[in-house]
């Protein structure tokens, strides 16, 4: 008698696997917004952008009244590091302060889900930049290369603002 493990999959196996998938969808589901985050993040017009990976995410405390939250997020790419702090404002909006390292006065774009237009600022020579009055939701940063440089843009993953 052949070993049952060597037989091809049949309908019963398919049913077992389908139910296993369904049970695991309950046991350990992906975050509800994972599809949304991915589709937002890849809807870029810059297909050659260098990906900056999330390397650290810290909650650095809350405001005195407990209404403000501050997070720092660090993204690392080969060519540059992008570090941001996201501060909740009392009015429900958010301020994002960022640094580029190595420092350079580069254009930084904050991509937001449509229909919100992207926001663009230029970092100062010390690499600092800021976006104020940003609504909660998803965001993604794009850093333009220095003018005349052949290096690609740097893009972060989408993150929750």
């Amino acid at each position: 008698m052949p070993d049952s493990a060597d037989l091809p999959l049949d309908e019963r196996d398919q049913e077992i696997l389908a139910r296993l998938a369904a049970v695991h969808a309950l046991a350990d589901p992906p975050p509800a917004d994972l599809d949304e985050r991915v589709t937002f993040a890849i809807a870029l017009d810059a297909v050659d952008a260098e990906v900056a990976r999330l390397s650290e995410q810290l909650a650095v405390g809350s405001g005195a009244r407990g209404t403000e939250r501050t997070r720092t997020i660090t993204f690392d790419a080969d060519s540059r590091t992008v570090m941001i702090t996201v501060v909740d404002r009392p009015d429900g909006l958010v301020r994002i302060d960022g640094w580029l390292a190595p420092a350079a006065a580069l254009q930084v774009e904050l991509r937001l889900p449509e229909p919100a237009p992207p926001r663009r600022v230029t970092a100062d020579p010390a690499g600092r930049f800021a976006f104020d009055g940003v609504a909660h939701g998803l965001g993604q940063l794009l850093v333009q290369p220095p003018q005349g440089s052949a290096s690609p843009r740097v893009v972060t993953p989408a993150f929750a603002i």
Partner: protein
Amino acid sequence: MTVVTLGSGQAGTGHAGTDRAARVGACLERARNGETAALGDVVRELNPLLWHVARAEGLTAEESADVVQTTWLELVRRLHEIRSPRALTAWLVTATRREAWRVREMSRRPAPAGAAQLAEVPDPGPGPGEQLLADERDRVLWRHFQRLPERCRTLLRIVAHVSRPDYSAVAEALGMPVGSIGPTRGRCLAKLREMLLADPGWST
């Protein structure tokens, strides 16, 4: 219940496999021409698989979500290297594991023993608890699933999320022995099936 046609496990088997390959192939072609939004359906289809691949590497839920997203962003840069739907799934699974290893190294957590072999990695899933499962057969299934060795649980939770035409490509990407994921049943599924068929709660 859908009647499935079993085949070589290579490219599409039966109409469903062929249709899917054609559909995914068309999405890839549009994405290569700059229309990355065309990947939306493929993202929704493959995210559960990639999620379980990352979780099986021992990452937290948050880390796994980041890894899956980074993997898709890297894919966009490398679309020109992906020549077929089958290659797409294999590329994504391989890249997800590589990203997961990187995250684990960065957090200075010791790699699970034999990290190169997925079968050795503990299953991090907490389980739904039987009371959450409304269907009696799901409860029976979950009970027997928990009795399997850890490496089988890890393997099967991934296999369960693989589309049939992708079996061999995913097995290859995971470095699993031939036959551990279709077209043959493999020992882990054979064991689970045997326990289920012996349980009146499943068979009736």
